[in-house]
């Protein structure tokens, strides 16, 4: 194995996250060396794919597997290795589990939630306006909106949010929580959801948890534990992602006043603006969830051997200049935009349509209510989260 000697292995991620800036090494790799050997903080060495076409292959091609990571020392950013749950599964087991929830997240079902989401956003902006200026966009809008939407959809009492919002950090934590605390939070989240499922089985309502129970009880191939983990994952993912992306999107827009003015002048651009911001904002600090080759596969001109893990960089794929013209420039009117911000293949984000709708509603609400929105502090005073898998602001003081 001379071609994979230690000296050729680069440390990954390449650098500490710097706000929403992408490490310039990705551009060089896409041009010169689309597949390299990397070592993550934990686990065995891996290949890193950086081009759009290669990332799609790794995430979408059935010759790559997630379940093959079970029993291996998976390359990862956290000491703990997750060896169960939907992200450790391949079809057909994966499909059987995902289908419990998938029907609730179709574009048609999500559209039914739009009017109520807009109403909630308006109420939250009322409170934001009453609190300032200045007032914190993270605390007043970005955090409570996605939590209320996912609670409504799942049938989780929003009054319990102080509990599960704390526990949810465990799914995106790298060093912000100790390993023991992260495990404790996950256990709490699963126990909470398990209790709610017991309750709903006795007294079904018309929420998603009750629907999942009905489907699962008709299909005895799924375990109770699998359903509990899926429901808890939906609750946690429902907030740790959109909660973080809302301030990220607003931050980018306020740093590009021409684009914000363009959006204000043409509300029809909101859907394409959300797609462009999904492409442009590298939400993840680094890629994870390696895919293992089930057979020899050529990726980016390199032969990946059966059994080897590959990490796919979505952030890099989204800046691939062979796919996106002027890829480092933000263009809210960009027409063809096959970004991979929600992933690709069977593990494509189940909440993608919901997140799109929420992000569109937030932009429309802010355009309507606070067209003169601006940062209330110099950009250098903004504080960024650390020790997490995602990039985001801890607070965002704004004025209007």
């Amino acid at each position, binding site marked *: 194995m001379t071609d994979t000697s230690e000296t050729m292995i680069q440390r990954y991620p390449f650098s500490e996250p710097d706000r929403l800036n992408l490490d310039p090494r990705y551009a060089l790799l896409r041009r010169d060396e689309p597949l390299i050997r990397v070592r993550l903080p934990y686990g065995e060495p891996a290949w890193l794919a950086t081009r759009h076409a290669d990332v799609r292959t790794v995430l*979408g091609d*059935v010759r790559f597997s997630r379940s093959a990571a079970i029993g291996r020392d998976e390359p990862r950013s956290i000491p703990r290795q997750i060896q169960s749950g939907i992200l450790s599964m391949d*079809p057909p087991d994966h499909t059987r589990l995902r289908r419990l929830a998938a029907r609730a997240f179709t574009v048609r079902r999500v559209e039914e939630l739009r009017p109520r989401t807009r109403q909630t956003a308006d109420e939250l902006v009322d409170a934001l306006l009453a609190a300032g200026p200045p007032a914190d966009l993270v605390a007043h809008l970005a955090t409570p909106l996605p939590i209320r939407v996912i609670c409504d959809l799942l049938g989780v009492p929003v009054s319990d949010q102080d509990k599960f919002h704390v526990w949810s950090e465990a799914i995106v934590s790298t060093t912000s929580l100790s390993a023991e605390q992260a495990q404790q939070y996950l256990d709490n989240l699963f126990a909470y959801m398990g209790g709610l499922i017991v309750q709903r089985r006795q007294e079904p309502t018309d929420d998603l948890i009750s629907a999942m129970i009905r489907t699962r009880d008709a299909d005895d191939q799924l375990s109770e534990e699998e359903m509990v983990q899926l429901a808890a994952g939906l609750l946690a993912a429902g907030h740790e992602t959109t909660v973080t992306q809302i301030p990220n999107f607003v931050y980018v827009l306020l740093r590009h006043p021409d684009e914000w003015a363009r959006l204000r002048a043409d509300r029809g651009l909101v859907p394409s603006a959300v797609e462009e911001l999904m492409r442009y904002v590298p939400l993840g600090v680094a890629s994870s969830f390696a895919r293992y080759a089930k057979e020899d596969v050529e990726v980016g001109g390199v032969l990946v051997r059966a059994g080897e893990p590959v990490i796919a960089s979505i952030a890099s794929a989204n800046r691939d200049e062979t796919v996106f013209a002027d890829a480092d420039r933000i263009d809210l009117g960009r027409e063809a935009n096959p970004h991979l911000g929600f992933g690709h*293949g069977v593990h494509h984000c*189940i909440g993608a349509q919901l997140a799109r709708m929420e992000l569109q509603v937030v932009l429309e609400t802010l355009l309507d209510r606070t067209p003169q929105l601006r940062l209330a502090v110099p950009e250098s005073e903004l504080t960024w989260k650390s020790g997490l898998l995602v990039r985001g602001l801890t607070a965002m003081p704004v004025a209007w």
Partner: protein
Amino acid sequence: MNAEEETTAAGWRLHVDPTRCIGVGICAGAAPEHFVLVEGLSRPVADRVAPAPAVIYAADSCPMEAILVSDVDTRRRIAPGS
């Protein structure tokens, strides 16, 4: 081949609506024997198939509801479910 023989050989019809498909690739990953991505969008490998749970799962998993599985004979919708 008349309709009766078609039903015997292949009871379900697969259709992917190209105006709805956004190429997320769930179907091609979950049922690769039935769906393939061509230039970024999904297409059925064959539009007549023998009944198989995998195509129902694929249609039920599509976030855009772009996949329609129907009975060749009765034209009744098999999936996605409501």
